[in-house]
């Protein structure tokens, strides 16, 4: 095991997969000469060259469109959208094409595409640059949506995403790149569509993913000091959603809090809670609670922005409410 940052783990996964398979190439804004806006592809341009690390104009529609086409024709593009907010400019390609081309033509070809993108708030970037709309993408059958919360998962899941023959949105969190964690030294893959228990406990089930995993882990540490043992189930993948570990945990704890960074309406919490009511209604000892972003476009002002984002204290209060 080596301790490394999320940035390094993602970068390693990309590097290894590009070494392994000539068909894998990177396409996006500032991925080459600049070295990636978040420095994930630093050094790639010099090593792999401009044919495989392709800087594009600012044109999200054609970045994803060309990646779709290249995938249909046998390549394995890793397209980078500088931030998830700009994915909205490529929405037609993602939703009407990446997600549907295969089934609509009766399975004649595959779309082995990875869209790497960066989401999340908390950096005072204002309303259009701070969103966490992960759930929007998870709405569409035909797409896979992965959002890791640790370096270990990021590396293993990205490698799987690149080897999968289906289109995958791989959502990184802008404030997690410096998060450190252990990563195996040898090659490993983490399966897409498998939730993972990141902390064991018997009192309350916390369901979360991505940045909010880290927030939930902090809350769990503090709750443990008061003798409350929280179990954390990390979804890791929003589609396919592996609900079984959540249900299993809930059957033991009988209490559940879902923590997501995005807005609660029609969100992850809404989905997970419904699944629990469908599959384990009789096990509930308290109403299921959600912790999420206040339903406002995120403001620039630091205090207001933090007020709108879910905090460790919000998780702690929600856990206390269901106890």
């Amino acid at each position, binding site marked *: 095991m080596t301790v490394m940052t999320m940035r390094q783990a993602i970068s390693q996964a990309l590097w290894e997969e590009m070494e392994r398979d000539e068909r894998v190439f990177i396409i996006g804004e500032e991925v080459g*000469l600049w070295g990636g806006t978040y420095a994930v592809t630093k050094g790639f341009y010099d090593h792999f060259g401009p044919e495989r690390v392709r800087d594009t104009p600012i*044109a999200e529609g054609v970045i994803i469109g060309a990646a779709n086409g290249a995938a249909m024709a046998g390549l394995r593009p890793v397209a980078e959208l500088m931030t998830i907010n700009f994915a909205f400019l490529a929405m037609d390609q993602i939703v009407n094409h990446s997600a549907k081309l295969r089934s609509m033509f009766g399975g004649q070809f595959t779309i082995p595409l990875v869209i790497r993108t960066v989401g999340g708030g908390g950096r005072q970037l*204002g309303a259009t640059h701070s969103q966490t709309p992960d759930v929007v993408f998870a709405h569409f059958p035909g797409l896979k949506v992965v959002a890791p919360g640790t370096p270990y998962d990021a590396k293993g899941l990205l490698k799987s995403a690149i080897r999968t023959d289906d289109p995958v949105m791989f959502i990184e969190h802008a404030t997690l790149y410096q998060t450190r964690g252990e990563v195996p030294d040898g090659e490993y893959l983490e399966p897409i569509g498998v939730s993972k228990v990141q902390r064991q406990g018997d009192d309350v089930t916390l369901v979360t993913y991505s940045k909010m995993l880290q927030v939930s882990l902090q809350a769990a540490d503090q709750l443990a000091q008061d003798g409350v043992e929280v179990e954390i189930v990390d979804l890791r993948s929003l589609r396919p959603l592996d609900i079984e570990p959540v249900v299993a945990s809930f059957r033991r704890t009988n209490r559940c809090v879902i923590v997501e960074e995005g807005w609660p309406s029609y969100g992850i919490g809404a989905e997970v809670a419904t699944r629990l009511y469908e599959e384990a209604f009789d096990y509930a000892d308290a109403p299921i609670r959600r912790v999420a972003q206040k339903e406002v476009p995120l403001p620039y002002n630091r205090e207001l922005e933090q007020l709108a984002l879910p905090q460790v204290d919000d998780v702690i209060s929600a856990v206390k409410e269901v106890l």
Partner: protein
Amino acid sequence: MDKGEMLLLYHEMVLVRRLEEKAAELYQQGKVGGFLHLYIGQEAVGSGVVSSRRPEDRVITAYRDHGIAISCGMSAEIVMAELLGKKTGCSKGKGGSMHLADVNLNFWGGHAIVGAHLPLAVGMALADKYQGSEAATICLFGDGATNIGYFHESLNLSMVWSLPVLWVCENNQYGMGTSVERASAVSEIRRKADGYGMQNDRVDGMDILQVRAATEKALEYVRKEGPYLLEVVTYRFRGHSMGDPERYRESDEVQKWKDDDPIGIFRNYLLENGHHNLETLDAEDQKVEDEIQQAVQFAETSPDPAPEALFQDIYVEGVE
């Protein structure tokens, strides 16, 4: 342009420059957050273009907007307050550097999604024409923005509907780290207007007098005939935003452009042609210093928005 107006423009350009140098300092101190894109090097574009407008003409631009805001008449105090996220800022602390606007000054923002404000300009010009107004809409954007679909859709529609829009491309030769040559099929951006049968021109953006003259001509055309694209060749002296490693350009190149500082060029012009003497210009520089100091003081002593502000101005009627 008379002597008095020239002095005002000189003052404005120096004000923009010093305001941004100060903003960079405050950013380093952690008082300004988020992204901060400096206009330093491009001042002659904003001042030259905006000073050519009539009050009824609308102005809309991208996120590199401090200079345009000042040129539209926003005070340094209000800009600074917004940069510090204060309640007294033009967007009540909710927008930050990239989202300055004051509709009373006919300045419609500061927009941070590349290219997204071009269709807004089409709509504004449509509304003006629809309502029988004589106003034009001036829409500024970068070279990088001309590669996105929005640009092409907007130019085309403005032409089809013969709308009063002046498209101003601030070609500073890079979109982040990507040079025009690496991103655009034609490096003279004005050529893109040819594809839509649109009148166009290209002008040196380091010389405010040339920018002024070209804009006046363009606006006259817009009012009589319809859309027009003006490409202004300029350069940003600083990184794309704070913390840009600038691996994509040589320092020689940056220096060469810095030697053509638009403020220096205009200053020399004023001196050499006897419009103003050194004393007057130095006095103007000093006035700017005072204004900046006062702006910082105003911003720092202004209140933060109240917590309730989080839920305000989202819908016309408040929500909880």
